[in-house]
């Protein structure tokens, strides 16, 4: 047992925010996750890279507790969330912010109300304090003067930014991004990549990015886990991944380099 300087037992996961061990998940006869093992260290940007249907989104939903694995552990901040009830899961989720693929903004609310929503639900801050914090978060993602707009009036890139502003408004420990650059043009993709890097550095959060965009993955990641048919086939830094000898990773990289 490791011990801290004052002699108290130190959790083996003390530097690890998310620890996934032996996770399996099936839907009927179809096995989607087949023994996933993954660690995400505090303050880093972890990318889970794979093609469509490889199990990335299912893995993300298991991390956040929207699904429960058939077998295995998902340990968040030292707590196995697979054993928690709904009330316990709600408490764990307060440590997370998530940016969904389609942003998942509430379309009956304005931009201001969307970003203010978590604060109004979980804090007793005054409306003046909420307004200040909302504008602060919108400024972090480089959005100004759009408080009264509705999500339907925004471009895809702007919706992603508002989604991120909402995700960080309660200062979470970890931000999850589900396919953040899917469907975006190259310029907007680049700005979203910079937004992820900037958020990670400025706010010192842990970031987990689910993506099939290898260019973005290489740009933002500290470590990349490549998932194929429900299994992690490679787990490396961007530099190590470029040198990987795994056939699937080589094919994946080859397709991307060909397009460049």
């Amino acid at each position, binding site marked *: 047992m490791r011990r801290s300087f004052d002699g108290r037992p130190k959790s083996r996961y003390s530097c690890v925010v998310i620890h996934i061990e032996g996770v399996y998940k099936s839907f009927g006869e179809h096995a989607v996750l087949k023994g996933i093992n993954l660690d995400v260290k505090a303050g880093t940007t972890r990318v889970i890279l794979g093609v469509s249907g490889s199990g990335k989104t299912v893995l993300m939903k298991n991390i*956040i507790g*929207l699904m429960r694995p058939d077998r295995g552990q998902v340990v968040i901040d030292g707590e196995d969330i697979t054993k928690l009830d*709904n009330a316990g899961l*709600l*408490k764990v*989720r*307060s440590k*997370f*912010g*998530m940016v*969904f*693929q*389609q942003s*998942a*903004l*509430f*379309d009956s609310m304005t931009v201001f109300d969307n970003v203010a*929503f*978590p604060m109004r*639900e*979980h804090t007793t801050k005054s409306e003046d304090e909420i307004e200040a914090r909302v504008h602060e978060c919108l400024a972090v993602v480089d959005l100004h003067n759009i408080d009264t707009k509705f999500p339907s009036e925004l471009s895809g890139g702007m919706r992603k930014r508002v989604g991120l502003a*909402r995700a960080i408004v309660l200062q979470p420990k970890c931000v999850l991004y589900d396919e953040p650059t899917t469907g975006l043009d190259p310029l907007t993709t680049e700005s979203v990549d910079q937004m992820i890097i900037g958020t990670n550095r400025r706010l010192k959060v842990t970031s987990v990015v689910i993506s099939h965009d290898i260019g973005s993955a290489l740009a933002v990641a500290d470590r990349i886990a490549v998932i194929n048919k429900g299994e992690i086939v490679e787990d490396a830094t961007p530099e190590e991944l470029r040198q990987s000898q795994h056939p699937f990773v080589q094919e994946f990289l080859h397709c991307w380099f060909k397009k460049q």
Partner: protein
Amino acid sequence: MKALDAISRGLAFVGALVLAALSETGAVANFFARTLVASLSPPYRLNLFFQQAEFVGFGSLFIVLLTGTFTGAVFTLESVQALQRVGMESMVGSTVILAVARELGPVLTALMVTGRVGSSMATELGTMRVSEQIDAMEVMAVDPVKYLVVPRLFAGAIMVPCLTMLFDLVACVGSYGVGVGILDIDEGAFVERIRWYLDPYDFTHGLWKSIVFGIVITLIGCYKGFHAEGGARGVGMATTQAVVIGSIAIFVLDYVMTSVLIQFMPV
């Protein structure tokens, strides 16, 4: 052998349908229980309840008043034809209002509200489900059942009986207008027969039903929307099912509740 195979397949099909219906009923009951449990603890979000009450109540007012007025008027027209054959046309007011209060008021109000409110709730929540807004709510540690379903359920339980009372009132007005105003039935006899034959219990009989109908309409609409999947097509199917199943549930529950109320609370 072929005949036996056909019979076997037919029985299997019927069996599968029955099992699916029972499974769905159980899932809806589970969803109802989860909603009730969620309603017991704070925050209570009264602002959301009032928004939904305005939508269910005020928004359905025109259609309910229109339906009630014409129901009273048409039923009076038809009833006079029958009652004149036995010289009892002065009984038309009490006959119509008795039927409206106990049966037509709660059932027709519920059917109008199902078409408008049930479908709207299924569409709204279904769209939220397929666009991951409900997932986003869960990720933000907000119970979506507590936030979305509880205000709608209570709005239905309170506003549908209010609408039923208004339906009964305008049906009375419609019946009076046609009976006394157009068909020249004696006004005194018309009113006296109503006072003689109707009991306040006849109206509460209908209101007990309308409370249950209000809960069922909103519950089924919310359940179908909450569990929609498969994009726009899935939302469309959820909306259709919410209206169809809601309407069937109203007829079935009407029979069940009438039997129970007559048995345990006879006039």
